[in-house]
């Protein structure tokens, strides 16, 4: 089985982002960038499937600027076998990503695509579901457990009321949630080895996909800041404030 893992380059989750003064977007110049944390979990899962003998090859694919190759290298250092980079500067929306991924799937023929559940920059939570729709495949979203057996995938999903388990026919798309696993750190030897692993370079046009955004971002602004509060000295003072000032109890 071949596993495809789409990985997105995003502003690191620890960075406190700043909105550009002209309201055109969020400052990404000179900001630490990393692999989307959910995608690290997806790569980890794919590599574990390979280590367990359930998968033969793990291919990481990223759509983004030239530096997205660094994100692919991170996946390769974690244990992915090779990379595919589709170069595109500027924003790319989930529908366009899904169309590009569909083209890659048709070329590569994986039986499983592991996406992150959500990119932490656009917070869209769409790409995996869209790819499943375009391919006519089964989808298992927000996975906290994944078992591959008997030509199928058993997926435990984190839903609002608790957990739900579903059975998917392969090939399928699974979008991973936080508790599926804990991603490994790449070791130095593996980082060195990753430098020699191949990355295929493409452009969206190679796949006949137009990545121009469908939605126009009119304005990006900072949310109104919360009014600063106070520190209370004791539980008594807290109870008093909640009763007489905030009037919430």
């Amino acid at each position, binding site marked *: 089985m071949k596993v495809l893992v789409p990985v997105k380059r995003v502003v690191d989750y620890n960075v406190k982002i700043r909105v550009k003064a002209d309201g055109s977007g969020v400052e990404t110049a000179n900001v630490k960038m990393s692999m989307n944390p959910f995608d690290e979990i997806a790569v980890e899962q794919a590599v574990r499937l390979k280590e367990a003998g359930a998968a033969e090859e793990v291919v990481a694919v990223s759509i983004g600027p030239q530096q997205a190759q660094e994100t692919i290298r991170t996946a390769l250092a974690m244990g992915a076998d090779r990379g595919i980079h589709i170069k595109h500067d500027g924003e790319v929306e989930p529908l366009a990503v899904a169309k590009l991924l569909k083209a890659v799937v048709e070329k590569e023929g994986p039986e499983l695509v592991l996406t992150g559940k959500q990119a932490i920059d656009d917070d869209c939570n*769409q790409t995996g579901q869209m790819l499943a729709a375009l391919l006519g495949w089964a989808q298992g979203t927000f996975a906290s457990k994944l078992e591959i057996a008997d030509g199928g995938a058993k997926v435990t999903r984190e839903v609002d009321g*608790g957990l739900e388990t579903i059975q998917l026919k392969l090939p399928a798309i699974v979008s991973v949630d936080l508790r599926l696993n804990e991603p490994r750190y790449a070791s130095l030897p593996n980082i060195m080895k990753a430098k020699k692993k191949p990355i295929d370079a493409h452009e969206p046009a190679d796949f006949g996909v137009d990545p121009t955004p469908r939605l*126009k971002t009119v304005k990006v602004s900072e949310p109104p800041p919360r009014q600063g509060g106070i520190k209370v000295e004791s539980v008594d003072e807290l109870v008093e404030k909640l009763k007489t000032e905030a009037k919430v109890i």
Partner: protein
Amino acid sequence: MSNLVIAEFAGDEIWSATLNTVAAAKEIGGDIHVALIGTDCDAAAAAAAKIEGVSKVLVCDDPAFTHQMAEAVAPKIAELAATYSHVLAPADTFGKNIMPRAAALLDVQQISDISAVVGPTSFERPIYAGNALAVVESAEKINVITVRMTSFEAVAAEGGSAEIEKVGGAEAQELSSFVGAEMTESERPDLATAKIVVSGGRGMGSGENFAILETLADKLGAAVGASRAAVDAGFVPNDYQVGQTGKVIAPDLYIAVGISGAIQHLAGMKDSKTIVAINKDDEAPIFQVADYGLVADLFDAVPELEKKLG
């Protein structure tokens, strides 16, 4: 303009998330229809017909929709969508699962998690864990939208009298099947809609220690929530998680106990009306958003607070 709201329901009950979603449709303007896609929908359809502002209820009742598997439901949504300008569902795990699949079938770019309606085709949505707000303008033929529930006050569940129309079912699909569910049982109010929420973090130390929060919650009639660290550590189930990737809530009172206040956590609770933080570290970032901060050991402060609430 014409809006189709995809309802979330079980048995005879329409979930409140649907009422928030109808509220967003109301701001967009035009007719509002509600679609029920599932099995044994009659009782829920009767309830949906009473929702304020709804003029028609479409019922798609078919065994193929059992457990509302995305592979069956999304094509139905795409089919129904053809005659509407806007199709909306709540941005909870139900809507997030099915709507992008329907949007892709329609070849439209979905607008996720809207927090305000700026105009009929212009919407505000939080990005970067709510640290920025983007206004997007859509020129899509159909606007497929998920709605942030806490940003739209629920419409009344009673008062309307919509007509009910049965529309067709679906072909059975064999891509996916339901195996089972492990739902968290609780007598407490629902975390998503509770007026008061008491949340615990890694500072709680163990699942057993959550008992002191539960006692406090019961005295306040509150729901219990948690940070990701508390869920990851196995103190409480996954559906307790509040944050960027958990539940987004905005109760009247949020009490954060032993939670440091990472941006991913703040993303899920910073719109609460009043925030209380109890933390022994006076530098914890949670104090920057707290209306009332108490620097104390939670194992002293929580039982004392519970006692003094009388």
